[in-house]
């Protein structure tokens, strides 16, 4: 690979992966806050009002860091991927514009009211603002993933190519209803809700273990476990499975890389674990479930699955990253279902707040949904390589030719330094907010 491709990809990967730490929580937490706010408003239950206020403070820090790291993303298509913008800007542009105009304005405007306006507006408007905040956040996710869906699967009904090889949007409806989008979006949202729920549950577990804020801790544990379990299940089925079907119908190279399937064979087995050895073209030390891959991919245990060895090298994504990221995501997803399933049983038995071993497990589990989210996006994006827009535009034809690799490396180092400091400050301030705890119940 050329140096320029590597440094520009590294630049984008570093910036987007750091950025996504924040939206992963923002989308899930905004829904959790809207739920707390609804319970507060409709049941007139002040405990949920306090929960909403506490989580809004964390949300503010998270949203602030998300905006700070998100602005560079909006401009990165122009700075580092000028040829991509020139060719595909006419298609992906309207989606990005609508994200700004329809979604991002909504969330940033109503966040002010949710955070600082409770005493200035009626309870109804405050509740409505929390709902609009969640709606704006989810809508924002939709417009961003729809852009990615086009890059994964450029539906032919949505665009045409001009004589000078640029892409033009011909049907916005077809663009927004890309079959790739629906399941990928719902899968993304599930990942985010799992993150939000498990972070809420972890803070609840922390307070329960510290024997502080008993009432607040109970609310966090209960809502975290229930919401988390629902969406862990939803992430696996149907959204994860349907998302996989889309890969099977659109990108067989990605499928082979994800599964570590080297040989083309009928009745292909599913590798649960194993290490891909690309130069030798084999999966080392695998544990297989016979015929399962063929069945999952095509609904037929005897169907042929195309292997990495049959696909031209120039069309293959990096196998190792795609394979490991996919297996990490799946493994963690299963672990979340197991942990939260135990949590639900303990909740039903009324022992959730007293089972200290389980509270420790929940507390230590909070980083893992982040890892699963990032791994999932690695599968989607690294697995799409060597294409920017699958089948239409290669990554090597998309970066800015008038920016030198040295400049890209320089700004990458700068961003990493700035982001490191930002990340440390973010963790310290969130830790401080958590150690301060929710406002006391003495007011009542």
């Amino acid at each position: 690979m050329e140096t320029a491709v590597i440094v520009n990809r590294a630049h984008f990967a570093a910036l987007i992966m750091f950025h996504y730490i924040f939206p992963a929580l923002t989308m899930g937490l905004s829904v959790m806050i809207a739920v707390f706010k609804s319970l507060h408003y409709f049941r007139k239950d002040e405990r949920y009002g306090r929960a909403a206020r506490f989580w809004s403070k964390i949300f503010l820090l998270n949203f602030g860091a998300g905006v700070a790291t998100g602005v560079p993303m909006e401009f990165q298509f122009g700075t580092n991927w000028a040829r991509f913008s020139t060719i595909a800007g006419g298609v992906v542009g309207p989606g990005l514009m609508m994200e700004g105009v329809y979604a991002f304005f909504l969330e940033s405007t109503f966040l002010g009211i949710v955070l600082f306006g409770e005493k200035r507006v009626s309870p109804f408007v405050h509740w409505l603002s929390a709902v609009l905040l969640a709606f704006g956040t989810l809508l924002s996710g939709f417009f961003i993933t729809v852009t990615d869906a086009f890059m994964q699967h450029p539906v032919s009904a949505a665009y045409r190519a001009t004589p000078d090889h640029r892409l033009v949007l011909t049907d916005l409806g077809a663009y927004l209803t890309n079959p790739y989008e629906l399941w990928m979006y719902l899968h993304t949202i599930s990942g985010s809700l799992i993150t939000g729920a498990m972070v809420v549950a972890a803070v609840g577990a922390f307070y329960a273990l510290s024997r502080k804020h008993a009432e607040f801790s109970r609310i966090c544990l209960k809502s975290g476990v229930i919401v988390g379990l629902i969406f862990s299940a939803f992430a696996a089925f149907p959204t994860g499975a349907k998302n996989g079907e889309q890969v099977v119908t659109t990108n067989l190279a990605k499928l082979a890389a994800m599964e570590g399937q080297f040989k083309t064979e009928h009745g292909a087995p599913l590798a649960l674990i194993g290490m891909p050895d690309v130069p030798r073209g084999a999966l080392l030390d695998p544990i297989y479930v016979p015929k399962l891959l063929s069945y999952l991919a095509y609904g037929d245990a005897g169907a042929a699955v195309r292997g990495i060895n049959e696909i031209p090298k120039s069309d293959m994504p990096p196998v190792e990253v795609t394979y490991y990221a996919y297996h990490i995501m799946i493994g963690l997803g299963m672990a979340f279902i197991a942990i939260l399933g135990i949590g639900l049983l303990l909740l039903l038995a009324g022992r959730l707040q007293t089972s200290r071993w389980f509270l420790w497990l929940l507390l230590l589990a909070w980083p893992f949904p982040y890892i699963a989210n990032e791994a999932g996006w690695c599968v989607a994006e690294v697995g799409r390589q060597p294409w920017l827009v699958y089948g239409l535009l290669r990554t090597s034809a998309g970066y800015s030719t008038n920016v030198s690799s040295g400049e890209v490396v320089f700004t990458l180092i700068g961003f990493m330094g700035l982001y490191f400091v930002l990340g440390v400050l973010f963790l310290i301030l969130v830790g401080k907010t958590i150690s301060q705890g929710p406002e006391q119940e003495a007011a009542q």
Partner: protein
Amino acid sequence: MTTLWYSMLGCMLIAFAVLDGLNLGAGAMHLILGRGNDERRTHFAAVGPLWWGYEVWLLAAGGSMVSAFPILYAKSFSGFYLVLTLVLWMLIIRGSSIEFRQQVDNDLWRGFWDVCYCISSALLAILFGAAVGNVIRGVPFNSNMDFTGSFALALNPYAVLVGVLSLVYLSMHGSLFIALKTAFEEHRVRALKAAGILYAMVVVLIVLTTAASFPSRHGLGANFIHHPILLLLPIITITGIIGIGCSLKAKNPLSGLAASAMALAGLMGSAGASLYPAILPKLGQASGGLTVYNTSAPQADLMLAAVLNLVGVVIVIGYSTYVHKVFGGKVNIHEEGPAY
């Protein structure tokens, strides 16, 4: 159609300048105007609940540029790569200082973020101004219609002049905003006095910049001669400038802000109108470079995106007006509940 888009993009950038100008101006004047923690906190509390919405105008303008003029977006941002990266870093630091300053009760912590807020805001004001200056002056495209915009190129004397105008203008804008929002009498008087001094500088700088613009770009006045209706824009500017002067005399920051917003819109509008149809001209030449014709997305796209954009912006203006009403009035930093 491209003309409509050109004006819409201009209007979005004007909205960004007028609204985020409040924040940038208050930031640039932060250390000078704010004495003591209560006054400085007022600055943050004034923009705190609203500033994300202001910054979104920049993002929305960026998104609109990809939709309508993808080639402009690609060429200009990659051309001014390092300068744009600096802008992004400053935006990150500016945002962090607003969010982080109130989080820790410690004078050193606050002092650190006060300086970050001031420097990043001032630099952003200069860089945004310099960007406008470079758009008017043009950039040295090669035969491939690419250019490499080093700092030396980006910060040429003319662009720096426009950058300084932008800094001084937004500082005045921000001072008026602080005078409007603060609950402390001394603070208000100081902000108005600063606005008066900055106003005098603005008048001088506008005359200088206008005089320097015509040698920098050949044929800059042609559009005004062919379409005299465009002369309304400079007239709006002059009316606005006079309006600021009258408001300052009457010590009325609200009408001063309105006049300042009007003059800023007039100024940016005039710059846009004098360039059209060029959008990023070629340095030292009357023609060539990027125009609305050779950078735009094909017509079908433009129509649809324009309708979507207009509808969206109307909705945004509706609810953000409401939110501004909610947070209207003087800032009370002793208000109960979460605040900056």
